[in-house]
């Protein structure tokens, strides 16, 4: 345990899954508590990880390595840095909460929790693996439980949603696989991500395939693969459907973590391995981010289904992160060596990923709460709920305000950092994107008004108030949101050094080659 903390974090859910499968199917309570215990232990371990994390370095820590398939140079490698650490902790938190959110699942309980735990391992594995092959395996491991969780426990259109999700992501994975293999063969037959980070750039310099720059080709392949997960416009349409049809806990995990995988992949793979192409593509990324922001907000404004509104708000929020990521080129000499802006943008983007994880999780849980009670999510079908459910309304108000980026809640800090970072380089884009701030407020407040304010809808005057279990799932997220909103440094100090490494890498390239 001493030296294999990361492995423990990755595999504990699988142990839990095995335990769950050994419990007879009618002992649902035992199954739930076992799942909760597995997720809880994982959470504790991830907190230990947090405590042991060395803040002074941006490199990988707690490195673990073992031979796996030596003939193909495939190894089992795990490591954590400032980029994966918050994601791992977020995953642990959301899965722990997710188990309690799923408490009322009554259909095939055993299968549900087993798949949930398998999904957990898949996701944490992606975040921690440092071997491309392992990365890809975890990536695919995660896909299958998700398919079943949506397809079996989802809403009325679940099969359609599941298959759409599956196909979309599969397309992404295939493209990613091609890129991974391309990197494997060009970087000396290795899947070791750290080695590839060092060798990809020199090895691919000047290589062309069918007249196209190899680096750009790989970059685009990877980008599409990850963009589908983020999701970046125009690869986003799986998201509203999957979110709406998925059971609450799965929506929470989809929005909270799965979307982060895409952004994480962009930073871990695209940015760290092919920094040259970042220079070439940053502008396009910023524009895509802008489209995400505005398009997502407009779509959200038009929604009548609360869950779909929240789903579109995810598209909108991830747009900010994209803009923040694009800001990294501000540090280049060609852009005035504005290192502060690059730091603000990149840290802001990662912070935004985390914040969106907590905020959208909160929103989805809250949607689930009202859906459990009223059995519909039609925004216009409610009204005046603040009278009958004051505590619930208060928490929803907090979540909505967090979603619209209210200062003193964490979403604001990260959005502001993304904007501040990107502004020196992409001035027009950022100014246009600020419209998103307004539209965000519009759709959240409008929805709030239609659901909670005005005359109480007589149908719902006896709706029970949010209960203890539900509060238990929401309040930790709300506390995180408020704490990081007031004082973001405890978060940023974990990621800062790693982001500096990333920026340095990209700047170094920019310094040599100039803007490509």
């Amino acid at each position: 345990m001493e030296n294999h903390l990361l492995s423990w974090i990755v595999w504990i859910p699988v142990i839990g899954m095995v335990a769950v499968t050994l419990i007879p199917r009618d002992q649902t309570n035992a199954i739930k508590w076992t799942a909760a215990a597995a997720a809880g232990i994982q959470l504790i371990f991830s907190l230990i990880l947090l405590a042991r994390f060395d803040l002074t370095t941006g490199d990988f820590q707690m490195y673990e390595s073992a031979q796996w398939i030596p003939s193909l140079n495939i190894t089992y490698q795990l490591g954590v840095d400032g980029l994966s650490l918050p994601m791992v902790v977020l995953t642990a938190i959301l899965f722990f909460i997710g188990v309690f959110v799923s408490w009322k699942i009554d259909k095939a309980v055993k299968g549900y929790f087993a798949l949930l735990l398998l999904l957990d391992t898949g996701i944490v594995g992606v975040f921690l693996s440092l071997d491309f092959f392992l990365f890809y395996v975890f990536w695919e491991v995660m896909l299958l439980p998700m398919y079943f969780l949506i397809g079996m426990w989802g809403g009325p259109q679940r099969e359609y949603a599941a298959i759409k999700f599956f196909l979309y992501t599969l397309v992404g994975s295939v493209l990613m696989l091609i890129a991974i293999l391309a990197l494997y063969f060009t970087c000396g037959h290795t899947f070791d991500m750290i080695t590839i980070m060092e060798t990809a750039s020199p090895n691919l310099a000047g290589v062309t395939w069918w007249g196209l720059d190899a680096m750009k080709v790989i970059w685009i392949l990877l980008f599409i693969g990850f963009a589908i997960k983020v999701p970046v416009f125009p690869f986003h349409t799986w998201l509203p459907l999957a979110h709406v049809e998925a059971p609450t806990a799965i929506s929470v995990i989809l929005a909270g973590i799965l979307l982060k995988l895409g952004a994480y992949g962009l930073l871990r793979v695209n940015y760290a391995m092919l920094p040259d192409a970042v220079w070439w593509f940053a502008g396009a990324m910023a524009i895509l981010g802008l489209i995400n922001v505005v398009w997502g907000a407009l779509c959200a404004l038009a929604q009548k289904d609360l869950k779909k509104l929240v789903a579109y708000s995810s598209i909108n929020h991830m747009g900010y992160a994209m803009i923040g990521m694009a800001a990294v080129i501000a540090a280049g000499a060609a852009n005035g060596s504005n290192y502060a802006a690059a730091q603000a943008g990149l840290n802001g983007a990662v912070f935004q990923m985390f914040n969106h994880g907590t905020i959208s999780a909160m929103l989805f849980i809250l949607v689930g709460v009202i859906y459990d009670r009223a059995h519909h999510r039609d925004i216009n079908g409610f009204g005046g709920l603040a009278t009958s459910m004051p505590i619930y309304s208060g928490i929803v108000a907090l979540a909505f305000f967090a979603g619209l980026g209210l200062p003193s809640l964490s979403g604001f800090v990260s959005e502001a950092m993304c904007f501040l970072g990107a502004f020196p380089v992409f001035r027009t884009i950022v100014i246009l994107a600020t419209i998103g701030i307004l539209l965000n407020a519009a759709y959240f407040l409008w929805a709030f008004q239609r659901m909670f304010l005005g005359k109480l809808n007589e149908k719902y005057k006896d709706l029970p108030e949010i209960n203890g279990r539900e509060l238990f799932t929401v309040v930790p997220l709300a506390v995180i949101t408020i704490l990081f909103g007031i004082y973001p440094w405890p978060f940023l100090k974990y990621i800062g050094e790693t982001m500096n490494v990333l920026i340095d890498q990209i700047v170094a390239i920019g310094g040599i080659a100039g803007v490509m």
Partner: protein
Amino acid sequence: MTENIFIDYSLLILFLPLVSFLILVFTGKRLPRQGDWVGIGAILTTLALSISMFVSMLIEYEPGFSHEASFSWINLSAFQVDLGFLVDNITIIMLLVVSLISSMTHIFSTKYLEGDIRYSRYYAYLGLFTFSMNGIVLANNLISLYMFWELVGVSSYLLIQHWFEKDSAADAAKKAFLTNRVGDIGFFIGIMLIFSTVGAFTYSDIFAGVADGTIGGTILTFAGIGLFLGAMGKSSQFPLHIWLPDAMEGPTPVSALMHAATMVAAGVYMSVRIFPLFTPDALTVVAYVGGFTALFAASIAITQNDIKKVLAYSTVSQLGYMILAVGTGAYIAGFFHLVTHAMFKACLFYCSGSVIHAMHHALHKKHDHETDPQDMRNMGGFKDKMPVTYATMLIATLAISGVPLFSGFLSKDAVLAGTLSFVIHHPEHFFLAICGFGAALITAFYMFRLIFMTFHGSPTKKELIDDIHESPKAMTYPLILLATLSFFIFYTLPSVNPISDHGWFKDLVVPQDSFVQDSAILSAHEIEEGMHHAHYLAMALSLLVAGLGIGLSWMMYYRKILSADEWAKKTGPMYNLSLNKYYFDENYQKYLIQPVLKLADKVAYIDWDLYDKYFINGFGRVTDWISRITGRLDYEGIDQTLVDGVGRSAGKMGSGLKQIQTGKLQNYLLFVLAGVIVILVFQTI
């Protein structure tokens, strides 16, 4: 008093209301009296602290006093954000204003909102508001300013929708927040412009950057205008003025506190704080926005019948004055007007609250739920029934109309002097003077119209008048206090000259030179000089227009020599425009909000019903189609013809070869033998 104690006091002033907010939000309903004493206790402590700071300021009497304290909020090696406080004389005065009005509101509300269903919630939100407003006042940087800026927006949102069962209240709250957000976009763009050039957020660093030319020219102009856009939203300046009148849906004490005295003044306060970075171009924009708003809002106030709406537009107009003062360079005059205005406008609102309270009770007694208790046409003749309210409201009205001996005279005069001096320097901007004096005229007119319609004449609803009573002491004491503070003497001490604004205020709050390097910018001294020169002319003119306005009003609504109705008919189209607020809401709705909603619907339709359904699913359909074809090819072509063909031919061959399969063991043996021989032969060969 040492500087550290100032910071400690400021921290207490800032966080006490927050503590009260937290206590009330979580435990409010379970506390005795729903916990209003928590809020009141916190705010009175805050007030005491503010007063002690104010007193020590008066004792020290140090014009340039300024103290800053900050801590590191974000400290990435290059990207650093420090948040902190700036305590100087302006801050101290502003803190006192906020704490004072907030305390009055807390006390006033104990009666006004007695028995309300969300009584404790209300006090909690008041705490949140006071916290965030003090945050704005104390901020020494744009980031925390922006954060508190939005937080006051939220508390305003929450308080406007206090009676959210009314759709109009919910609408108004949303409108207020969104309109403010429009301004905040500009604010944030301004912050980004400044940060991307200067790389800092604190006022002092920014000013240093402006001074050494790190930021300048067009960028600085746009940054200034961007920041000012935020101020426009918060201070309800044209064309973002639409939310403030609607915000009157909130409880009246809230209107007094936030939508008259303090929160809306935050825009002005911010403009005052960042004045040194406005370029001449930006200042021109500021001046025109302020001037135009002053006149424009006043012209709407004339025709409104809702007592709170009149006061709301009056507030917009007065805020326009302050902005005008900032724009013309006399920003200290603007700040002065902010302070005096806070007192008398809060007083006016409380008075209107008192009247509405009385109306409400009278109507309630009569079981009349149809009559609007805020409509002045239903009032009249309350003078004798509510003597305290009448007296205090009259004093406040005299103050706002700019009658000598009252505080409004001094501050308004300073603003008009500044405007006049600016116009004298730049005759091409004569329109600003028209705005200033025109607004003064109209203000005097509609304020006295309000007084006459409410308190004088014969009651329109005779059945009500007997049930109209003076409000309880918790409501009248704040009125008396604020009315007292509307006398000039409190602002001019130790000087007692009622027509000169020389005194502690002028001594302690000294204008700062602009840091912008532009020859067109006048120094603080030059502006002072100009104002001094224009002082008497401005005074004469302002007295003239005030008198004119009061006289007209007197003729029309007191003596009724002139018929208001006839005048309304005579000026038909104009009157209608004013009555309908120039149709701004309708036009925004028609040309801005609806199109955006329609666009959203279109986009959602494109996204979901076109893009996803046809394009994305199109891939699926194409794949399906291709797979159908390949499926047919596969089944009929390859499988049936080729593969099965092999099978069939094998079958044919088999049935042919079956003949060999005699089933006789010996035949097989023979073949085995043959095979062995063949192998043998081959091996030998």
